[in-house]
């Protein structure tokens, strides 16, 4: 392997953002025909480094060498011309356009008129060559996430990319789709492509990569380490700089009465298409239900229906026996339903208001926060300061605007607000997405504390490890239907993957009747 020439070399890359040093003299090299994993925690600078390589960002210092020659990219177009294609974590696809339109986007040929039938055929031919099947005429929004990823790969191959940079490619896939992706990646390296695989998942790195480079706080802690003979624990140590506990301590569940009962709910998504189809679910006091599903299968809509943010066309939402379906969100708030929403900036907080105002957003109607229609500012400030200390929200003061808080601190603020109201039911959607390890631990601790207090919790997450660690029962959702439930202790990844892909498991068959 030592004689194999490098496809790409990066030397001493420095990239600064206001207040952050994202890459601190980082080196990276990629050999021809290898899968090179770039491992690190959220915020370690992996994506930034690769965005520099892909021409999205300009480095403040350092040089990039492609096939022996130094290059300077001023835009992604330059990088693509040099054979480097990046597949972003959030897919860069235009949802309203077809597969073929997305693939030819940004090219200069054909220059004006687009003969779509012929272009579709060309895309089909490319698909045959690499075994990446997807209907060229389908619109992107109609495709599953796995199919969208294939479109991204095709887009780069169509441009003749020899180096593919994949940013967290498995984050949105079912376990089965991950396996398919790995098969594709191996066939691509066999045909001479080189792949950078950005990830924070140790198992996957060991499964697919030939070598691994580990980043921590923008610095390289292991450079081009061969994955042969390396253990997960060693990599984890390099990644976080301390031993990581892979499981969460939790006492056995003591399920009480049914706190939330969803009966036969149907609801539409924003496009007016069915999002929930006769969905039923029960959550008991003192247990965590973990809901798994590929994004866009109705889990967001479910959380919105329960919390009153979305109407439903049939069915009932019973909170402690009372139907609150199609009522306003206040109906749920009054019944002590806490909501930790997916969209922290739009739904979970009001970015332009102060931290203090965000913290009282659910109890501002009540004494002593308000008297009649007047807010008691001194009580507001006292409460806000208390919560800030109690939940360790790091902010210069309670008067700072919510939009200036980091993701982790904003999430702590939302949790503080929701938990301080004494919830009986918590709907938590993607509560740890994009947070660093410390903040994730804090979120998990709060959820487990609430569970021990006897609160019913519905946890909707795409992080399977999180679901496996926290949940007592695991429920699958696929195209708005309940795919059954499994006890968390005995559930396997294969079973969960099947539920996410639409094959009912566990008790689902009996529920159908």
């Amino acid at each position: 392997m030592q004689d194999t020439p490098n496809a790409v070399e990066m030397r001493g890359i420095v990239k600064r953002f206001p207040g952050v040093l994202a890459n601190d003299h980082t080196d990276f090299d990629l050999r021809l025909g290898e899968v090179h994993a770039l491992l690190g925690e959220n915020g370690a600078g992996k994506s930034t480094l690769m965005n520099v390589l892909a021409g999205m960002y300009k480095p403040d210092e350092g040089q990039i060498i492609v096939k022996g020659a130094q290059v300077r990219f001023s835009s992604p177009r330059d990088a693509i011309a040099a054979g480097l294609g990046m597949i972003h974590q959030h897919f860069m696809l235009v949802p309203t356009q077809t597969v073929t339109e997305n693939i030819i986007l940004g090219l200069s040929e054909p220059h004006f008129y687009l003969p779509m039938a012929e272009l579709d055929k060309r895309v089909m031919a490319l698909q045959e060559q690499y075994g990446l099947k997807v209907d060229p005429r389908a619109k992107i929004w109609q495709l599953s996430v796995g199919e969208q990823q294939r479109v991204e790969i095709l887009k780069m191959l169509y441009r003749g990319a020899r180096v593919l940079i994949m940013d967290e490619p498995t984050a949105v896939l079912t376990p089965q789709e991950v396996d398919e992706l790995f098969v594709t990646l191996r066939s691509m390296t066999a045909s001479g492509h080189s792949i950078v695989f950005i990830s924070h998942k140790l198992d996957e790195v060991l499964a697919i990569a030939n070598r691994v480079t580990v980043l921590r706080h923008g610095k390289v802690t292991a450079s081009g380490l061969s994955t042969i003979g390396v253990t997960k624990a060693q990599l984890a140590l390099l990644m976080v700089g301390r031993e990581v506990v892979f499981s969460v301590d939790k006492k056995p569940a003591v399920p009480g009465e049914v706190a939330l009962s969803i009966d036969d709910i149907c609801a539409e998504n924003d496009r007016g298409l069915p999002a929930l189809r006769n969905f039923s679910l029960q959550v008991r006091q003192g247990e965590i239900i973990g809901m798994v599903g590929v994004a866009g299968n109705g889990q967001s809509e479910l959380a919105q229906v329960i919390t009153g943010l979305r109407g439903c066309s049939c069915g009932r939402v019973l909170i402690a026996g009372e139907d609150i379906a199609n009522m306003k969100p206040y109906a749920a708030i009054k019944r002590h339903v806490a909501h930790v929403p997916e969209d922290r900036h739009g739904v979970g907080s009001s970015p332009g208001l102060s931290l203090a105002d965000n913290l009282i957003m659910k109890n501002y109607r009540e004494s002593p926060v308000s008297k009649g229609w007047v807010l008691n500012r001194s009580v507001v400030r006292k409460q806000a300061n208390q919560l800030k200390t109690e939940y360790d929200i790091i902010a210069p003061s309670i008067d700072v605007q919510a939009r200036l808080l980091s993701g982790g601190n904003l999430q702590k603020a939302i949790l503080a607000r929701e938990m301080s109201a004494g919830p009986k039911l918590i709907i938590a959607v993607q509560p740890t997405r994009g947070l660093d390890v410390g903040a994730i631990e804090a979120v998990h601790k709060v959820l487990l504390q609430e569970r021990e207090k006897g609160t019913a919790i519905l946890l909707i997450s795409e992080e399977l490890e999180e679901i496996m660690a926290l949940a007592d029962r695991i429920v699958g959702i696929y195209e708005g239907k309940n795919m059954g439930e499994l006890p968390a202790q005995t559930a396997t990844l294969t079973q969960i993957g099947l539920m996410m892909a639409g094959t009912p498991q566990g008790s689902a068959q009996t529920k159908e009747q």
Partner: protein
Amino acid sequence: MIDWIVILQAGVASGTVLLFASLGEILAERSGVMNLGIEGMMLIGAMTAYKIAVVTGNVWLGMVLAMVAAGVLSLLHALVTINFRADQVVSGLAINFVGIGLSTVLGEGLSKSGAVNLLPTFSLPLLSQIPVLGPILFTNHNPMTYLGYLLTPAAWFYINRTRPGLHLRAVGEHPAAADALGINVYGLRYRYVFIGGLMAGLAGATISLAVSPGWFSDLTTSGQGWIAVGLVIFAQWNPWRAAAGSYMFGALRRLILDLQGPQTLLFFANPFYYMPKLGFFLQMLPYALVILILFIGSREAMKKRLGTPAALGVPYVRGERGL
């Protein structure tokens, strides 16, 4: 009695104004920039066209300079919203006021300066012989009306069947994706905001040189720029629908005038004849309709169903994190 052929023919002629303005706005909005300043840009266009035509006697020069004048104003909007990332609604309203103010000041006393060579009207051979459609569409129209017939399919074809159109749609739907593939997002947004300005200028010139010749201060456009804003939503950003809507609104404006003429309507006494004040109510209807369209079109769920460009109104910054 009401002569429907005349109403429709006049509707097509005056609807051409709305058509130009809304086609331009469709292109701008498809690229992600909303320009509420159409009314102001049309006024600048109308005033410039008429003034240049009066001074030089050349209507075509007036027409070209009208487009340039409105185009320059639209570039101001582009600078403020694309580079400085100002709120598009606020900037659009400001552009509107600038347009109204400038045109009123520069057009002072212009209405008294006498008649101008109007655009010639002519009928198209053969096509004007078609029963019903011939008299409505192809008889005694000015060249602008015929230009409108060409621009509608051309705009549709450009947006949906060509590479520049594909890139235009991508920039308005997902600018980050377009940027990642090397498409110049700012450049394209500038281009289409400018084209929107040129078209608004052309719309204004069409009023002051052809449809209702002369300069009558801000009554020249009488709010048609705002109707065009509503039409774009009503048309779901589709040129064909915009054409249908424009001609419909054009005919409606004429119908409202004609309704106040006859003493009887369908054998009944015509209330609009005997109570002229009701005419104001009729004249209000198109504008009320626009408010309704804007109201419906602004709902979040409705936006997705209508196919509103996803990035409409959102400034683009490369590598913007969070928020």
